[in-house]
C-alpha cells in the first residue's frame, strides 16, 4: 500500500506568549491509498490540528509530515527566525500539494454563493490555470462521483446542507486529488444526511483515494477502515475494522454484531 499521508511522531505547540499549549504530542498517523481513516476525540483533543498539519496550514514543532512519501523542504533557521528563502520554499511546496494532491472540505464549506455549483467545483482548476472547457469537464466528472450531476446548474444558496456538502466534496476531489481531508463534514447534517456523506467519502476511498476524516461523532467514524482516538493531543487508541475478535461466538451467525 502506498502511504498518501504520514505523520511521524508529530508534536505541535501553540504559544500565545503567556502559555504554551501542546495541541499534539508525538502523534503518528498514516493514511494509505484506498483507505478511510477517522480521527475522533472530544473538542480540544487536537483533531483539527491534524487536518491543518496534513494540508500544511500548520507546521509541526517536531516530527515529520509526508505526502506521498515526500517531506517538504527543510526550513533553515537563523537568529530565532526562519530564513525568508527557506520559508518561501516550504510554503510553495505545500501550495503545490494543495493544488495537485490534497483536497480539503472545511467545517464551513466555503463555497462561493455567487457561483453555480459546477463553477464552484471547477474553481480550483480555473485558479490553477486550466482552460475553462477542461475544468468544466472535470468538474462534471467530480459531481457525478458524488451523485450530484443534477445539481450542476444550481445556485449554492438554493441547496440543502447535504447537497452543499456534496458540492464541497466534489470540489475537494476535482482533478484527481489523491488525499481528501474532511473536518467535521457531517456536523450540520441530520443522521440520514450524515450517513450519505460518509458513504460518499467511503466510495472515494474505494475508488483509490486516501480519506482522512475528523469528527466528534463516533457513529460517523464507524464507517472508516480505521478509527484513531485522540485525547489531550495524544493517540490513546486505534481500532481497525475487521481485526477485532468477535467474542460473541454464541450469538447466531449474521444476526447481532
Amino acid at each position, binding site marked *: 500500500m502506498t502511504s498518501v499521508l504520514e505523520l511521524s511522531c508529530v508534536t505541535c505547540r501553540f504559544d500565545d506568549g503567556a502559555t504554551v499549549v501542546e495541541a499534539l504530542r508525538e502523534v503518528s498517523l498514516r493514511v494509505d491509498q484506498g483507505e478511510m481513516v477517522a480521527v475522533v476525540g472530544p473538542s480540544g483533543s487536537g483533531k483539527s490540528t491534524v487536518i491543518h498539519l496534513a494540508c500544511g496550514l500548520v507546521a509541526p514543532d517536531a516530527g515529520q509530515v509526508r505526502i506521498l512519501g515526500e517531506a517538504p523542504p527543510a526550513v533553515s533557521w537563523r537568529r530565532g527566525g526562519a530564513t525568508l528563502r527557506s520559508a518561501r520554499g516550504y510554503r510553495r511546496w505545500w501550495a503545490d500539494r494543495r493544488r495537485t494532491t490534497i483536497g480539503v472540505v472545511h467545517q464551513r464549506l466555503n463555497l462561493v454563493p455567487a457561483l453555480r455549483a459546477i463553477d464552484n467545483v471547477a474553481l480550483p482548476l480555473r485558479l490553477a490555470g486550466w482552460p475553462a472547457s477542461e475544468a468544466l469537464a472535470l468538474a462534471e466528472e467530480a459531481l457525478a462521483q458524488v451523485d450530484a450531476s443534477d445539481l450542476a446548474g444550481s445556485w449554492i444558496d438554493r441547496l440543502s446542507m447535504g447537497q452543499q456538502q456534496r458540492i464541497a466534496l466534489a470540489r475537494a476531489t476535482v482533478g484527481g486529488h489523491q488525499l481528501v481531508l474532511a473536518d467535521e463534514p457531517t456536523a450540520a447534517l441530520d443522521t440520514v444526511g450524515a450517513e450519505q456523506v460518509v458513504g460518499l467519502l467511503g466510495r472515494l476511498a474505494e475508488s483509490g483515494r486516501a480519506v482522512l476524516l475528523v469528527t466528534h461523532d463516533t457513529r460517523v467514524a464507524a464507517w472508516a477502515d480505521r478509527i484513531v482516538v485522540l485525547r489531550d493531543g495524544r493517540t490513546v487508541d486505534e481500532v481497525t475494522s475487521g481485526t477485532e475478535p468477535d467474542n460473541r461466538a454464541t450469538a447466531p451467525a449474521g*444476526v447481532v454484531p
Partner: protein
Amino acid sequence: MALRDALLLLLAEGTRHGYELKTEFERRTASIWPVNTGQVYTTLERLQRDGLVEPTAADERADNGEHGRSRHDRRRPYRLTDHGRTEARAWLADEDTGAPPRDELIMKVLLAAHSDLGEAQAVIDGLRHRLLARLQRIRERQRRAPDTLAARLCSDALTVRIEADLRWLDLCTERLAAEAAATGAKGRPGSPASTTTPERARGSRGKR
C-alpha cells in the same frame, strides 16, 4: 420481553397460524431473535390455556374443511380473544420493562473506578476500544446485509445504544480527570504523569 408478547401483537393484526407467526416475527425484527417453530407452538398452547388466544374453526381458512387435525398441525390458525387484545395493547403501551439497570458496562466501570484512577482509565479505554470495534462490525454488516427497513431500524437501535455507552465512557474520563485533579492524585488520566501510558492501556486490552 417474551415471545408471548410478540405473538399477541402479531395476532392483533389478524388470524395467523404458527409458522406464519414465526416467519413474520423474524422478518419484522431483522432476525435479531430467531425462534424455532416448536417454541411458537408451545407458547400458543400456553396462551390458549390462559384464554388469550383461540384456534379458529379449521374450515374458516382451510380449503378442505377437514376436522380433527392434530394439535401440531402447522396450518391451524389462531386468533386473539378480547382478553388477549387488551393484553397486547397494554404491552405495547408500557415502556417500563421492570429490569434493574444492572448493565455489565456500568458495573465494570463502577467497580474499577475505586482507588487507582489510572487503572480505572485503562479499563475505560479498553471498553471504549471494544465498543468502537463493535460499531465497525455493525457498519460492516450494514454494508453487506440486504438493506431493509427492519435491518436499518435494527442497526440504528444497536448504534445509538453504543453511542450512549461511548458518551458515558467519555464522561467517566472527564469525571476521573476532575477527581484526580481535586485530590491531587498522581494518576491523572491523560497527563504525562499518568500511571496509564497508552502502551499500558493497549497491553491490558490485548490480554482480554
